């Protein structure tokens, strides 16, 4: 039996426990929530192993209601004494609370759509497998000599149950596995991040994520300072996600309706239905518009990167270009990773890119740069039309940053 199996409260046990707690209640209403499970993690930094642990948890939250008065008490002790005291405490708190005018009536029995978010491969993962996953970043970084890596692997396997006096009961088991890492170059100038999350441990490609972060660290070395001003900026999905998370603080309906949010309409009410962001309409230069009927392919992208001004005389792009073949190949290879459907790179000898050797060494087998839909990232050269990217292995929404 694994640690997860021992820690997760089975459906029948959860239902029995909720029914037992409901019977202890003297309130008009009672809602019981049970969380149980096991969490294990391993952390590494500065090319060293850091902390690693496994935690068995359970928590029972009891919310009692008398009319529109309600309050909650929480415990992680499932003994009868403890449960009786916690019920009594939530009832005492509820009686003391004033009426909540926004209280909603409790739900009765519900029908739920079954979901399948529990994977044995995640729940049963061993400490040795977690350590081996960490080695996908540690080994190459140690071997390289010029890199320092810091990362974190965490797996969760748990169950949530909820029930009330009116016969509502729901139960769900779920697993998650999350990997993030940051690789930095020892000269302090380069840094690359990678990360992914899945309910299924087997879906996480640790080696690829580690390789990608290392590549990014190297590509970002020795950045050049730029003047302050307005630039078109291309953000990875995770970076956009971080901004969206910040916006969430102000997306409450109450705050908007009450006049204390950027989403409040002047004069009263909120901005629901109003256009608040402008996606299309980027003011491309006439020079670039002249290429509008053409399709971006690797060769055009290569020429554009060599010298935007030569490719499109009169462009607003101030970037001088990059004469280094390897740099351009790396940029193109990176942009390709942002594509949902990356176009295969041309073979080294292919006329499209061979003269400049733009295709990275890793370029593959299948030739023929797609004549049709270009590498999506190519469209980002002057502006960033929404069309660009959504990498398949991109970062998890839940990954954290302080």
């Amino acid at each position, binding site marked *: 039996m694994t640690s997860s199996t021992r820690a997760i409260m089975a459906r029948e046990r959860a239902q029995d426990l909720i029914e037992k707690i409901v019977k202890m209640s003297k309130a008009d209403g009672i809602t019981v929530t049970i969380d149980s499970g096991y969490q294990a993690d391993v952390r590494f930094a500065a090319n060293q192993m850091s902390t690693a642990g496994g935690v068995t948890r359970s*928590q029972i939250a009891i919310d009692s209601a008398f009319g529109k008065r309600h309050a909650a008490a929480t415990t*992680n002790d499932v003994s009868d004494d403890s449960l009786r005291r916690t019920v009594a405490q939530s009832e005492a708190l509820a009686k003391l609370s004033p009426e*909540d005018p926004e209280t909603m009536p409790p739900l009765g029995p519900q029908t739920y759509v079954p979901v399948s978010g529990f994977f044995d491969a995640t729940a049963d993962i*061993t*400490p040795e497998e977690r350590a*081996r996953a960490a080695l996908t970043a540690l080994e190459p970084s140690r071997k390289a000599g010029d890199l320092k890596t810091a990362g*974190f692997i965490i797996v969760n396997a748990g169950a949530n149950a909820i029930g009330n006096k009116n016969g509502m009961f729901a139960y769900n088991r779920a697993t998650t596995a999350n990997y993030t890492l940051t690789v930095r170059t020892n000269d302090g100038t380069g840094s690359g991040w990678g990360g992914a999350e899945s309910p299924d441990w087997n879906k996480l490609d640790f080696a690829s994520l580690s390789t990608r972060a290392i590549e990014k660290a190297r590509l970002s070395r020795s950045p050049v300072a730029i003047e302050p001003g307005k630039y078109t900026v291309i953000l990875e999905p995770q970076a956009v996600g971080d901004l969206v998370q910040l916006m969430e603080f102000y997306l409450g309906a109450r705050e908007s309706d009450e006049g*204390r949010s950027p989403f409040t309409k002047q004069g*009263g009410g909120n901005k629901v239905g109003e256009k608040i962001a402008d996606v299309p309409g980027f003011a491309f230069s006439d020079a670039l518009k002249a290429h509008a009927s053409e399709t971006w392919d690797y060769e055009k992208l290569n020429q554009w990167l060599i010298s935007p001004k030569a490719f499109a005389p009169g462009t607003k792009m101030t970037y001088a270009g990059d004469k280094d073949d390897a740099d351009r190949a790396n940029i193109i290879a990176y942009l390709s990773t942002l594509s949902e459907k990356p176009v295969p790179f041309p073979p080294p000898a292919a006329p499209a890119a061979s003269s400049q050797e733009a295709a990275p060494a890793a370029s593959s087998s299948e030739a023929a740069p797609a004549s049709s839909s270009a590498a999506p990232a190519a469209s980002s050269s002057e502006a960033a039309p929404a069309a660009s990217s959504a990498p398949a292995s991109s970062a998890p929404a839940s990954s954290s940053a302080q």
Partner: protein
Amino acid sequence: MAAAGIAAANALSPRFTGLLSAQPAELPQDDVIKQLMMTAINTAKSAGASYSDVRIGRYHNSIVFTREQQIVNTADVNNIGAGVRALVDGTWGFGATKTLTTDGVAAAAREAVAIARANRIARDQPVQLTPVQAYSNVTWKSSFKIDPFTIPIEQRADLLLRANAEALKVKGVRFVNSGLLFVKEDRNFASTEGSVISQTIVRVGVPFTVTAVAPDNSDFQTRGNVVAPAGRGWEYVLEQDLVGNAGKWAEQAVQKLQAKSVEVGRYDLVLHPTHLWLTIHESIAHPTELDRALGYEANYAGTSFVAPPEKMLGKLKYGPEFMNIQGDRSQEGGCATIGYDDEGVKPENFLIIKNGVLNDYQTTREQAAWLKWWYDSQGRPARSHGCSNGDSWGTVQFQRMPNVSLLPGDKDIGWNDIIAATDRGIAIEGDGSFSIDQQRYNAQFGGQVFHEIRGGKIVGQLKDVAYQMRTPDFWNSMDMIGGQKSYTMGATFFDGKGQPGQVNAVSHGCVPSRFRNINVINTGRKS
């Protein structure tokens, strides 16, 4: 073993479950807890650990939140369990369980050892711990006079609703949010070094925010963060006189609606301790965490410009000669104040910045060894500063911030004296929103109340103020600081760090201080 486990559980259960009542009893040193702790570390040692420690704790939180004239949330959270740490062949492992029986803690200890052993394949350098004195059967209690958990919820809510009512009397105020957060931690610790320690820590938080809205909804302004959290009891809540001060805070919110939007430019800034504590927290306390400086937080909280230590210690001129920054866990009422840290170290006061120059970092037992070369050069022993902390029994302890404070100057001057000595500037009270890069080098800070200073006098209120800083330049521009009488502590309950993320409560004491010629931007500009 099994029979002993059941006996232990039976003996333990009533004591712990008794704490679920609204007025929990004190938890004295308990033979059963000691027995469980001995079981944990002995099991770890038998399984192959060269070192092990165990924390058995009860973490009790209680909250009441209100808005205007209604309670929006009350909750009481009680969490007990044991966390065991084991060092095997130079590699850490940690196991935690809520099952406080002999079998339960022994299983957690075995798991800690198993995880440590599994990680050996990925180990490079073995962990080494600096020596620590053993403290056998010691107890410690934080400096609260009235246990806040003894105050009925009704009384707490009444206080908040009366304060809200006072704020709502002020014309222009539409919303008030207030709350009381109480924390009580009963921590028990034992290690294979021979320590057995029991501690009780109480903290209180009093969030209070008033929002004034312009009649046409064209603007809204808030006044919040008016009371700093503290490592004290109900007496601290009463000292804040919420009802008496609510009207003043509400007036400040309304005045911000009419305040002049700041003109961008360079100003002398006079920063009140209620504001400056946050700047210290972000730009001094975080970058001098040793694990952070060495890249151990690179994947989460960030790194530090105060790195590498060999190029910084004794060399980096952080500020003027009169600038001394102390790390400690001893200040009365400090949120990070504690008798013994989570490695059994009795913390000492230490100067992070001495006479303006970087002198030390925040350390644990593992980290202090990394700076042995520096301590040797200074003729000091390499020992932990007692900065190890886990935010519950279920999280592994690691380096967390102690109280990090700007020590007062020699002259007996204060806030008004510094304003009087300033010709053109802005005086800032209260902490607001901020942004700082992951190395803690470039930052921008807002505030709560901004006073315009002309000719040594406050001439009105400003709004939309934020100042930009590059950390060493900013601190080196400091040219006046207050004396002992003007020393005040600010604090946060929610300093985040680590993976899995943990929170830490920490205080920062400081005095009013002046900074010359600082770039101020206008945050209200539309484009």
